[in-house]
């Protein structure tokens, strides 16, 4: 299947929804070419501001602009958008319930060759506890477009976490994104694979391998990590014998933690959390990194066998 660029789609969507909507303002911090906000910036220069390498100032400025009634998108790599400026996100954005949409590109190991300094593996863990913040991790270009549109139309803080590389197309143009609604890509009776972002295609691949062994795996894209779709997760946990979560993020505080927090208190279920095990990433191609840190379909298959044997 064709692979598509999520950040490319982000730039195009911004331009499409923001060209004539004078309420939309876009900020970047010297990475507009990489985050693709420049697609908007080149056409709508009067509502695009490159803040330069001043991420703290960018986040609080975004909050200030939004407090005058604007919808503000602010973008850079996840490591700078969330990690570097956590206090600004907490106080300027969330405490003000400011209408600011943080769209981070280059999340997780998917960054590749730039290495650990640029591979943000802790952003979901940092943002989930923040009041007013919504966290969305799209799994393909179509979902990226829908999530960006949704964030633009709905008041308050959002974080949309994008990966650098291109991902397989999962949804067609009829796909409807709904905040707090996970999407069941494939139903299954034996085990549930919950995945986000670039890991959704790994889960689908794993489900195919498991099918050959007569293990029927459900694949669910939990693109809204916060607020979590508790109904769909409960339903899947009840219908299958075990669950596995897969994310290009630390095993601490991300999707796996969110689901474990919910299931352990409501429907204790056999579970395996697959992610980066509390270590820094390193340089290498994204594919090599996923192999090295065992974020692969093969690993998912192994863990599935162990859980339901």
């Amino acid at each position, binding site marked *: 299947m064709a692979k598509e660029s999520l950040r490319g789609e982000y730039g195009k969507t911004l331009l499409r929804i923001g060209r004539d909507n004078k309420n939309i*303002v876009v900020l970047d911090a010297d990475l507009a070419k990489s985050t693709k906000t420049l697609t908007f910036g080149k056409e709508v220069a009067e509502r695009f501001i490159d803040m330069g390498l001043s991420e703290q*100032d960018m986040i*609080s400025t975004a909050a200030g602009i939004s*407090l*005058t009634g*604007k919808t503000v998108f602010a973008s850079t790599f996840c490591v700078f958008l969330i990690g570097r400026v956590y206090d600004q996100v907490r106080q*300027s954005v969330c405490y003000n319930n400011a209408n600011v949409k943080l769209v981070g590109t280059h999340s997780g190991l998917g960054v590749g060759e730039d290495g650990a300094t640029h591979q943000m593996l802790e952003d979901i863990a940092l943002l989930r506890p923040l009041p007013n913040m919504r966290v969305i991790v799209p799994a393909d270009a179509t979902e990226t477009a829908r999530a960006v549109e949704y964030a633009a139309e709905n008041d308050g803080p959002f974080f949309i976490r994008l990966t650098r590389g291109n991902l397989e197309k999962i949804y067609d143009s009829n796909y409807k994104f709904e905040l707090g609604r996970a999407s069941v890509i494939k139903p299954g009776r034996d085990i549930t694979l919950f995945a986000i972002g670039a890991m959704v295609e790994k889960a689908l691949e794993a489900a195919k391998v498991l099918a050959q062994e007569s293990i029927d795996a459900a694949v669910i894209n939990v693109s809204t990590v916060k607020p979590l779709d508790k109904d769909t997760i409960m339903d899947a946990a009840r219908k299958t014998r075990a669950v596995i979560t897969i994310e290009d993020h630390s095993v601490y505080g991300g999707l796996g933690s969110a689901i474990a927090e919910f299931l352990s208190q409501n429907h204790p279920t056999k579970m395996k959390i697959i992610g980066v095990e509390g270590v820094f990433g390193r340089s290498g191609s994204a594919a090599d990194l996923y192999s090295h840190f065992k974020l692969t379909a093969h690993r998912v298959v192994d863990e599935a066998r162990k859980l339901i044997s």
Partner: protein
Amino acid sequence: MNKTELNRLTGIAREIRILIIKMLAEAGSGHPGGSLSIADILSYLYFKEMRIDPQNPEMQDRDRFLLSKGHAAPALYAALALRGFFPVEDLFSLRKIHSHLQGHPHHIDTPGVEASTGSLGQGLSMAGGMVIGCKLSQSEANIFSIIGDGEAQEGQIWEAAMTAGFRGLANLCVFLDYNDLQIDGRVSKIKDIYPVKEKWQAFRWHVLEIDGHNLEEIETAVDSFKSEKEKPTMVIARTTKGKGVSFMEDGVDWHGVAPNREEAEKALKELSNG
């Protein structure tokens, strides 16, 4: 400024100081020093300068004030209450459970508070953002802010300074509450921010120096800001921390300690006679 006007604004500044002492004594905690030092600036902005409407706090095209040094919230709350944004009695619920008056300003809770502040350095960026937002809406509203001298040690202040200077945010008027005291001691001993004027000029700001307790000088500075059309304005306001209460003046120990009953009575007596 004529004498009647001067007397009126001086009286309001005194009223703000009295309320600061009363509410802090009632709260049992809070920041008197840095609140007392900005009372005159707030008196001028809220009772002479800003285009605001307490009956309609969200009025379109209003001028806005952001207290970047959010710990001086008692001064802001006193000014807002006296101006009619909420009842003066509310002030005595400061810092108590169920009060809308948080220890540091909260935009959602309190009418007239334009942005939540308290983590230093962020208010200046938000104020700059408001100028940008207003301009995009073709509004010529003015945005006022006060930063602390200790706060000027925050890196974000200089990011925001560079943005406002470079982008020529001429509708931004910032006062530096330059009292040379921060929690751990003298600003000039801990991490001196001197030279101040040259720094802000180098960041392409229109810079003025005044006595921050002199209402006529405050007026001159604000008039100069309004006639400046290309640069943001920095008013370096020389102030005395704890101004108006002799035993608090220039005393580092009164940064974050509320007066007890006895001390409050003594302070109120001085302020009422002053």
